[in-house]
């Protein structure tokens, strides 16, 4: 938690300094709390990434390869030939400034280089210097800069201060996607060994064990069984988790945080209760035990490498199709990259809900359905019985997670579910939800503790909108469909809007879900009384 109080932290001046932005200088020492630690040697060596070494951003010498400038230049050139997006985004920005105040990190820090346009200019200035005639002839007049060590340090600071949430891209008249620019910059930095541990370690873990947290198969099984036993003890509900079952109809892919830590575990149990009730023939996998993919924050090759296991496992287990749990960047990968990278999937069938008979035409090729699409269809077809009053102690709002919002457009499905499973639902202000939604400020590998001040700063827009509905409607629960959100939003809410808890959507589904042969429920999944304490005393 930051040492500064919210009242102190919000004293932000959004006016830029007089000094020109082209002079790079980042004082890492005085800015502790706003950057992440570099990648550990073990992870980097395991993954075969470049330049494993002990170093710190506060060091003068970053121990780069001798020809690091050449490596980045060549890497840049290669990517310009491989990604039209990069070339177009490098050449079309007019610096109109529409994106300037759309970034949560800019709003929360006032640091002008967090304006998306300048974040991209950090890369664009090198592009102009290295690859354009005007930049070569006119230099700084045309916005060109030489790639110096200070520029690289600045890249590190600011490209690991972007959560790739794509909010700026919604407002850009040319659709310039800073997430894409940040991804390229991070790839280039990876080439010379400039990276952060919060991406390198999960990537290495994920490659080895199948999930970011490095949970090995026996622990995976134990964790899940433990959660199920707890459910049985607390609520008397029995669910039978299915793992690595060959010939199941559906492979269920989840973010590992869901079976690892609160409040994700409640959502996880929610999935299993739902599947148990509808009798879905599903299996989880101890090998493909992670849908999330920190490759997205590392390099395109790493995305593919980590995503490989999903179809590989689907094929091995002989399932017909795949359901994916509530996870943000996992869904960006599943939706925008998986089929292209690791498809085609001729061994799977077009997803068809065995309960409702609905064919998911929108997943015809990828064969992977979002659990919110699946559940919304169940509710619509009245295949599950729900008692929303069991969530009456909650006054709920919904946080649209960046990737399901701006890389899929999954807005109505979770809302439809929430409105069916709880009676008190309130939207946050309209410029902070749906496609305008604000990031939790901990995505893209930035959700680590050493970066906490920046997370809280970047969390200001979301936290402030949350505070608004808390004060206006007594909202006390923010639901979301992202595992990183469930990990990063609790400290953010505690800081900016104390009194609001965080949950997944399927936790609330499971609370409301009427199961066959169940005894009357008095407690919710968190083991708390279904009625708010204060209500019991005032109710006559």
């Amino acid at each position: 938690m930051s040492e500064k109080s919210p009242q102190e932290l919000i004293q932000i001046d959004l006016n830029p300094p007089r000094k020109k932005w082209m002079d790079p200088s980042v004082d890492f020492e005085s800015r502790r709390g706003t950057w992440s630690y570099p990648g550990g040697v073990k992870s980097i060596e395991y993954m075969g990434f470049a330049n494993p070494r002990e170093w710190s951003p506060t060091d003068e010498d970053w121990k780069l390869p001798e020809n690091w400038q050449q490596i980045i230049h060549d890497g840049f050139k290669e990517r310009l030939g491989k990604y039209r997006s990069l070339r177009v985004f490098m050449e079309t920005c007019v610096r109109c400034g529409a994106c300037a105040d759309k970034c949560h990190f800019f709003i929360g820090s006032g640091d002008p280089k967090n304006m998306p346009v300048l974040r991209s200019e950090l890369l664009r200035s090198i592009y102009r210097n290295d690859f354009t005639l005007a930049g070569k002839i006119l230099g700084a007049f045309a916005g060109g800069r030489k790639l110096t060590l200070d520029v690289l340090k600045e890249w590190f600071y600011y490209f690991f201060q972007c959560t790739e949430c794509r909010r700026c891209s919604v407002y850009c008249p040319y659709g310039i996607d800073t997430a894409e620019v940040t991804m390229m910059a991070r790839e280039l930095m990876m080439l010379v060994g400039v990276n952060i541990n919060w991406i390198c370690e999960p990537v290495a873990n994920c490659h080895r064990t199948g999930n970011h947290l490095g949970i090995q198969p026996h622990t995976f099984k134990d964790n899940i069984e433990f959660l199920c036993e707890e459910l049985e003890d607390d609520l008397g509900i029995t669910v039978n988790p299915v793992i690595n079952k060959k010939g199941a109809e559906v492979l269920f892919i989840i973010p590992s945080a869901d079976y690892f830590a609160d409040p994700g575990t409640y959502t996880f149990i929610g999935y299993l209760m739902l599947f148990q009730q509808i009798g879905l023939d599903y299996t989880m996998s101890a090998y493909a035990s992670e849908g999330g993919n920190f490759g997205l924050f590392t390099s395109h090759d790493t995305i593919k490498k980590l995503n490989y296991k999903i179809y590989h496992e689907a094929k091995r287990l002989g399932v017909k199709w795949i359901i994916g749990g509530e996870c943000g960047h996992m869904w960006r990968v599943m939706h925008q990259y998986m089929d292209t990278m690791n498809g085609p999937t001729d061994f799977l069938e077009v997803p068809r809900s065995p309960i409702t008979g609905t064919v998911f035409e929108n997943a015809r090729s990828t064969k992977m359905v979002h659990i919110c699409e699946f559940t919304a269809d169940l509710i619509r077809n009245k295949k599950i019985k729900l008692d929303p009053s069991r969530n009456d102690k909650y006054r709920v709002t919904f946080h649209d997670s960046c990737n399901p919002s701006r890389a899929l457009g999954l807005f109505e499905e979770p809302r439809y579910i929430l409105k069916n499973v709880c009676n008190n639902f309130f939207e946050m202000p309209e410029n902070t939800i749906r496609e305008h939604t604000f990031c939790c400020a901990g995505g893209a590998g930035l959700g680590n503790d050493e970066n906490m001040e920046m997370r809280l700063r970047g969390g200001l827009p979301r936290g402030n909108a949350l505070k608004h509905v808390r004060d206006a409607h007594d909202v006390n629960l923010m639901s979301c469909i992202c595992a990183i959100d469930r990990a990063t939003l609790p400290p953010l809410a505690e800081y900016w809007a104390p009194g609001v808890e965080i949950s997944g959507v399927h936790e609330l589904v499971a609370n409301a879900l009427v199961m066959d042969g169940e005894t009357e429920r008095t407690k919710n999944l968190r083991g708390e009384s279904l009625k708010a304490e204060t209500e019991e005393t005032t109710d006559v």
Partner: protein
Amino acid sequence: MGALVSLVAVAVLALLAVTAVASDNLRLVFGAVIPGVAFAVFLVGVVARVTRWARAPVPFRIPTTAGQQKSLPWIKNSELDNPSGTLGVVGRMFLEVLFFRSLFRNTKVELITDKEKVNYIGTKYLWAAAMAFHWSMLIVVFRHFRFFVEPVPRVVEIIQSLDGFFQVGVPVIYATSVLLIVSLGYLLLRRLADAKVKYISLPTDYFALYLLLGIAISGFLMRHLEKVDIVNVKAAIAGWASFQLVAPEGVGALYFIHVFLVSVLFVYFPFSKLLHAPGVFLSPTRNLANNNRAKRHVNPWNPPIVGHTYAEWEEEFHDKLVASGFVLDKE
């Protein structure tokens, strides 16, 4: 600083053009040769740039979705902000290219620190100025057709009469002439007055604005103040169209300034941010349908990367798997 340097640069260019009045040879160079070469550079340059973009593939389908996806049949999808197919993409691009839909969404953040409140207020000034500038520019360019073709098409006359609807002044002051200068003036002032925009502005951003303002103002003055013999101008320009390079008679410094700055704009275009004009068509976050899961997108350079296979994983965790009671593929 950048603003000043650019102003000086455009002023120097304008002064350079004034020297053309001095001699017949220079008149020919500035009045005919340079414009011809500049136009050729513009044409070849833009085609070359777009071709270079086209040579790089679009490896992934990464549209920015700004509305509800098409999923279940009973959920209404937002076809224009999150297109599910070609028709939606055409609609989205139509609105983006002609009406700057994304810019229309613009908001301004307002931080009320003592009340700990962050507000987002819709703001349409930039959108309105951008629309006014680009549409005026298009109509002004279109009006110039009367200098290039004979007979002047009826549609040009119709546009002229609509544009001069208010019938103010002789010759009539066109609404777009005024809008063009006013909107450019606003965009320039905004760049100088808005601290954030000033901070992000490069010298070249001012250069483009000064150049366009120089062109617009010199054109306006030529029509309304220091009039030129436009019949001679048209005769000369029409000569270029049949590749006879002649400079018009009966024109003064303003004409050369106007034509030279247009030439500079032509040459500058393919090497600058003005490429946003063709670029907007090629932005993969806007021109692709969000149908990734329904239709596979092919990456021509998809690298042959294989992840950690199940067999490798099983081998590594063999003993733990056995102890935990997992059924193994390989005993």
